[in-house]
């Protein structure tokens, strides 16, 4: 086992405190993103997730201005944007993309202002790169505890509410008829989404955070139709992508021209895409076999109705 690890990993990986922080924060982000993101895919709120991530850039840039860690900026701006989206009308399918798009535009406009103010009045240099594309190895160790606590909070929200959330996601009308507080559920979910996006932004940047949020759940839903099992698979895929991405980024330091690693975010996003592609294989294989046996390509057998709701709302 140790020999395998040493064959795959360049020296110093396990003793590096940067790697320890990255592994902890990245895993928390991936697990929470898988759970929360699964609902985003089911609810057709991928675009909302993407928008909350992008708006995180505004918070991150603002955080540099006032001199606090970017995580708090991501979180504050994400929650504020989620609240505005909820108020403007994210719960109605028709107004949803409009509300999201308008909030996104305003948020990115503010991000442009804050980045400009950062550059003009504050001695920051890496702000743009760090916030947009992530800088997991530069995350200070003191961020680990709050990141894990926030992740636990978001995870607790979706675990506690997963049954009503599933029903609301599958059929809002039925849920309302049963007397479920559809709007409150939506608001609680958006809060969890904002937290999850903040953690993902810390790991791979605000622009790419959506990859962690949507990619593993989308891949997992190709592998299993059962929501809870799909969430577990998504969490495994997400953590796998992040940890493997961290390991590859570590190794890339020794690739020619040596002495300059490739960013973690690139590897994570590339792996997520690979996982998504590979996840289509079992089903394609199955449907080909079904086709040979019955003469016509059939529907995948186990996909329930709610799983086939539009996967991407953007």
């Amino acid at each position: 086992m140790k020999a395998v690890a040493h064959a795959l990993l360049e020296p110093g990986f396990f003793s590096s405190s940067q790697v320890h922080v990255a592994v902890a924060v990245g895993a928390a982000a991936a697990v929470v993103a898988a759970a929360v993101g699964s609902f985003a895919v089911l609810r057709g709120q991928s675009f909302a997730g993407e928008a909350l991530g992008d708006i995180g850039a505004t918070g991150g840039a603002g955080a540099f201005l006032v001199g606090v860690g970017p995580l708090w900026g991501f979180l504050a701006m994400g929650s504020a944007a989620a609240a505005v989206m909820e108020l403007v009308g994210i719960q109605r399918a028709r107004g949803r993309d409009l509300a999201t798009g308008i909030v996104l535009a305003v948020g990115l406009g503010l991000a442009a202002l804050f980045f400009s103010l950062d550059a003009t009045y504050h001695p920051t240099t890496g702000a743009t790169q760090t916030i947009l594309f992530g800088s997991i190895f530069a995350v200070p160790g003191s961020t680990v505890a709050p990141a894990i606590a926030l992740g636990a909070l978001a995870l607790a929200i979706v675990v506690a509410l997963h049954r009503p959330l599933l029903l609301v996601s599958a059929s809002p009308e039925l849920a309302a008829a049963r007397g479920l507080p559809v709007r409150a559920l939506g608001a609680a979910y958006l809060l969890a989404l904002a937290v999850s996006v903040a953690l993902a932004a810390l790991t791979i940047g605000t622009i790419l955070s959506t990859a962690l949020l949507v990619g593993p759940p989308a891949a997992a839903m190709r592998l299993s139709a059962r929501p809870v099992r799909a969430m577990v698979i998504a969490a495994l895929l997400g953590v796998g992508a992040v940890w493997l991405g961290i390991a590859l980024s570590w190794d890339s330091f020794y690739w020619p021209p040596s002495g300059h690693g490739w960013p973690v975010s690139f590897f994570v996003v590339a792996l997520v895409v690979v996982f998504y592609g590979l996840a289509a294989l079992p089903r394609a294989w199955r449907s080909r076999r079904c086709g040979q046996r019955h003469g016509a390509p059939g529907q995948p057998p186990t996909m329930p109705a709610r799983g086939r709701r539009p996967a991407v709302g953007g």
Partner: protein
Amino acid sequence: MSRLRRMFAVLAAVALGGAILSACGAGTTRRAPGTVLAVGAENQYANVIEQIGGRYVTVTAIESNPNTDPHTFEASPSVAEAVSAAQLVVQNGLGYDSYMNKIESASPSASRKVVEVQKLLGLPDSTPNPHLWYGPTTMPTVAGTLVADLSALQPAHAAYFRARARAFDASLSPWLGALAALRSDHAGIPVATTEPVGDYMLQAAGTVNLTPFTLQADIMNGVDPAPQDVGAQESLLADHRVKAFVYNQQVVDPLTESFLAAAKRAHVPVVGVYETMPTPGYDYQSWMLAETDALRAAVLEGKSTQKL
């Protein structure tokens, strides 16, 4: 009809407002009669122009805010105006102030003299460290060129410019002496930095910068650093393998702050360095001397000078 009239009224108001604004803008560069209008892209160059040109120059510094990073500076319309009106411009080059080239080519002038310090020193574009003013031979060379350019613009005062350049060169000797003393008595002292801003001075003082250059370049360029480099830097500080931590006060991010905290934990003395001349209270030579004295106090007495 009334709608059309209202539109005209609005347009007129906008045009008037624009005229007032542009009049205000033009009034900002006030030039003493008979002087050369000069611009220093960074205030250390503006300071040297002032020292050589004396009462025959009116100098504007583009970058002088000690709380910003010049690497990410964005030029505003007023900067463009100051540069396009200037007869003499001094800029660093090496991509450090490339906005100057853009403004200059946008407002071409056959009579404007542009001193690009990179070209003056004959440095290739691939030179990794752009912070040329920390090098002890840079400003004397710049001063020599300024004498020639100012004399061409104002031939009547050539002797005055020459005399001031001699005085400037002489006033650098305390700094050069301090560098030479450090180099001869304590050569090879290990130091760490966040960024290569002071590296030419550190070399001239005979110190050895143990921070990997890739990390310095990544922090300077705002690129995600490799964890191996970050780990190497942390152990330099935590194990107290360096005598001073030279900290760029103008390129700061959570990573540099975590290094600063690590240095303080390990009681490694900190020396603050700057991208532009800290004002008020300093001219170029007293700034450089203060930096070198702070370095000496750090490596010999373990004393921090985090801010000048």
